[in-house]
């Protein structure tokens, strides 16, 4: 796994350390209660949103290896029938990917979308706001039981700290989200455990372990890096969809002048006269 460049440079002349020791040697800024300060705008480097298992170069997108680090072969350990379902999903992805119709991305897909998210944090509170579909997750303390008995597209998140790593336990994800645009999927038994660790001031490591006995033969883990957006004025733009004439919902960028619905009151009043 590749550490942040600055971390490598800083340690180029130091004696070799284990990856764990390198991570432990970065002590992040903290809130008043001592918890690491994760606040800010973050975005994944990886292009796993296309395919968690890696993909060839496409127009505008470089080739990418798998982000699956366990199993070692980088393949999601599907059960045999589930593998067939994944193939079906892949074949029909242009129409059956739930994200096509502006459905929320779920976990972990939302983390490695090509749009940023922002972590808001204060003593006792932590929330993650994604650009995509203005989804958000409120990470409650692990002492609060999960809301079992109801499913959410973005799941139900409970967090605790292990040293300087935020560990988030996610359940109740339902079964309607995919893991990427290539048809990788899960059942309503999906259980995700995420680990967020600051490696340096502007780099965070993200790991997620997926368990789903209906779909996967065993748990498997992905790992990728998130970069902090340090540009002045960086923000999470609103992301709302509208239904298009093709019957499909489409994202509308608030930076696009076409986002504005210009009213023409005289024309609307003229149409009133034609009301049955």
């Amino acid at each position, binding site marked *: 796994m590749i550490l942040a460049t600055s971390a490598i440079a800083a340690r180029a002349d130091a004696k070799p350390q284990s990856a764990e020791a390198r991570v432990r040697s970065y002590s992040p800024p903290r809130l008043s209660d001592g918890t690491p300060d994760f606040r800010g705008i973050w975005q994944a480097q990886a292009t796993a949103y296309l395919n968690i298992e890696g993909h060839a170069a496409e127009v505008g997108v470089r080739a990418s290896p798998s982000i699956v680090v366990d199993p070692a072969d980088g393949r999601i350990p599907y059960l045999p029938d589930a593998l067939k379902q994944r193939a079906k999903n892949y074949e029909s992805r242009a129409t059956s990917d739930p994200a096509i119709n502006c459905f929320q991305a779920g976990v972990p897909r939302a983390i490695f979308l090509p749009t940023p998210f922002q972590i808001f944090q204060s003593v006792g509170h932590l929330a993650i706001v994604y650009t995509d579909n203005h989804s958000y997750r409120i990470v409650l303390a692990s002492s609060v039981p999960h809301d079992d008995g*109801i499913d959410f597209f973005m799941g139900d998140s409970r967090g605790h700290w292990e040293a300087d790593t935020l560990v988030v336990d996610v359940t109740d994800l339902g079964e309607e989200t995919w893991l990427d645009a290539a048809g990788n999927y899960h059942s309503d038994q999906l259980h995700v455990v995420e680990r967020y660790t600051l490696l340096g001031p502007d780099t965070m490591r993200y790991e997620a372990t997926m368990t789903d006995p209906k779909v996967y033969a065993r748990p498997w883990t992905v790992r990728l890096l998130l970069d902090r957006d340090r540009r002045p004025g960086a923000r999470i733009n609103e992301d709302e969809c509208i239904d298009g004439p093709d019957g499909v919902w489409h994202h509308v960028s608030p930076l696009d002048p076409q986002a504005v619905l210009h009213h023409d009151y005289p024309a609307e009043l003229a149409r009133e006269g034609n009301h049955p």
Partner: protein
Amino acid sequence: MSTAKLATIAGILAWLAAAAPTRGHHSFAAEFDLDKPVTLHGTAVKWEMINPHSYITLDVKDDDGTVTRWSVEMGAPSALYRNGWRKDSVKVGDELTIEGYRARDGSNTIFGSQARLADGTRVLGGAPRNVPPPSPSGSSTPDKPPNP
């Protein structure tokens, strides 16, 4: 509206309405006709605890054996959840009696205002917090407007 077999399982009448609090996103009367009350007795085919409205799909059998499929719309799951509803609260095959108001467009859709469930113990309705439970007589009007 034809009558159907009465449910054989007794239960406590549960109050589904306080419909305005559950209709958080559009006008009730635009879609449902208060002058067309409907009572359905049938078998649950599906229970979907989803936003913005939850649905019970109900197969209603006439005396002559014809089965008509109805869709019963209810409130938002967060409101139902706060009143004890869970995604396993209605199971396929449950015998239900549901009263409501018919959709204006003539489809087999009602907004459910009262229900007698197979186990009959749920307080329903997506009513806001602190709403008192319905009176056992099953009157169709709560004693006072609910408060959030």
